[in-house]
């Protein structure tokens, strides 16, 4: 359960090098419990890497990552496992388990908890699949689905256990504009119902501006903008303005 007023995500001066590339260079970020933050930025700017840091799949070379008051930087597996139980994550490439059916994929986070009855799991999976527009698909294998459908299964799996923090990596990539809007409406309704903290990474500037009240723009491992989504278009940073407007003229 989320606790309003508390800091859900605290990223402090994080540095990370992957291979020969400095991916994150002194990144700072704070999100309050129950907040909704959209992360924007050009490709290969470190957005997906940031999500992996938040769930402990990567460890920073320097700096600190705290999730709901717990420091993940030590890399202690027991601490990471405890924190991850309260996190739902949608991966950019879905990461659906290809040896399980759609229904089993969505049921997996609940089934692993061990404290939810089989009947309740079945009902919740059916309801969740219906809400993402995939009613009647529980028996299908992920290989039978299109990219957009896989994305929706990934969203259903990330949110079915009602985690306190949900991380979405490109939740609407590959979806048509109508489905994109429906998905963001669904994510909004979910968040309003559960009060969870949401961090969504997307390249779809317009859709993300409509979804998240707060935005952050990452470029070359640094935050170039952090603030209200309604003010981003008027940023003093030419790079931010160019990215938001989609103009060809500018520093990008």
């Amino acid at each position: 359960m989320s606790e309003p007023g508390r800091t859900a995500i605290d990223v402090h001066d994080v540095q990370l090098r992957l291979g020969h590339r400095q991916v994150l260079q002194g990144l700072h970020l704070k999100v309050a419990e129950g907040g909704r933050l959209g992360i924007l930025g050009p490709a290969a700017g470190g957005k997906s890497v940031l999500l992996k840091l938040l769930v402990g799949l990567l460890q920073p070379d320097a700096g600190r990552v705290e999730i709901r008051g717990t420091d993940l930087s030590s890399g202690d597996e027991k601490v990471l496992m405890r924190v991850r139980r309260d996190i739902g994550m949608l991966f950019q490439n879905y990461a659906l388990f290809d040896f399980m059916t759609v229904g089993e994929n969505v049921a997996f986070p609940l089934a692993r908890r061990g404290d939810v009855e089989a009947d309740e799991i079945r009902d919740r999976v059916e309801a969740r699949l219906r809400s993402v527009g995939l009613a009647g698909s529980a028996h299908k294998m992920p290989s039978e689905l299109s990219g957009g459908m896989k994305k929706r299964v990934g969203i259903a799996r990330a949110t079915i256990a009602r985690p306190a923090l949900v991380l979405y990596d490109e939740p609407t990539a590959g979806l048509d504009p109508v489905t994109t809007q429906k998905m963001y409406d669904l994510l909004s309704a979910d968040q309003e119902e559960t009060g969870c903290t949401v961090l969504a990474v997307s390249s779809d500037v317009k859709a993300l501006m409509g979804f998240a009240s707060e935005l952050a723009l990452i470029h070359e491992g640094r935050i170039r903008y952090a603030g209200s989504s309604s003010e981003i278009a008027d940023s003093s940073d030419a790079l931010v303005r160019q990215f938001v407007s989609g103009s060809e003229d500018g520093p990008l």
Partner: protein
Amino acid sequence: MIGEGLITGIGRGTMAAWRELGGITVLTGQVLRALVPPTMDRPELLRNLYRMGNRSLPIIALTAFFVGGIMVVQAGVLVRQLNAAGLVGWGAGYAIFREVGPMLIALMFSGRVGSNNTAELATMTVTEQLDGLRALAIDPIRYLVVPRVLAMTICLICLVILGDIIALYGGALFAMLVLDLEYATLHYSLVDNIGWLDFIHGVVKAGVFGAAIAMSSCYFGVSVRGGAVCVGKAVNAAVVAAAISIVLLDFFLTYLLP
């Protein structure tokens, strides 16, 4: 210049081999830690036992049947020359139980199950499915690797026992058809000269080979980096590593076991 290049190549190859050996050792440590006390996914263990064991049975049975036959046919010339029909059952049984059974079946198992296991785990790694498990607070070692290691070890022991029996019957059939021997001659030659120790010798080898195939196939699967091309390279490396392990372990076990 050629000498320098050769030395560099040998050095690089040696470093890579030690790195992979170190990785397999670390993974083995993680698997052993997960087994004390045993914490693993039982449905996943049963699923793997079925697909790795049951589905391998037809190909192993076919191979074993003809291996028994080949041994008898090869021995046929010598048996006729020395008039040693009474030794055929013993000779075939000794070789099948101690050497040919475990080694050939292990190599077949590595080609069919080990390579498939590496491809599956490597695909899961490059498509972020292992990260997906971690993000759901599930340790992929306990959930995916431990059940596979146990299943492959158990399956290879069972397949070698069944394969030994089938190879003996294959050998007996070919001995009767090709060498004109009577079944009773073969039977008494086998039971009078072969002891439980010969059988156990092969079963112990099967267990060790199964664990070696499992560890190398899982290691190359979970440690793969890159895309689809790297999956192919990982499968290749796993099959080669398993084959070398089987031969080396066979040598040491033959030397050490009674």
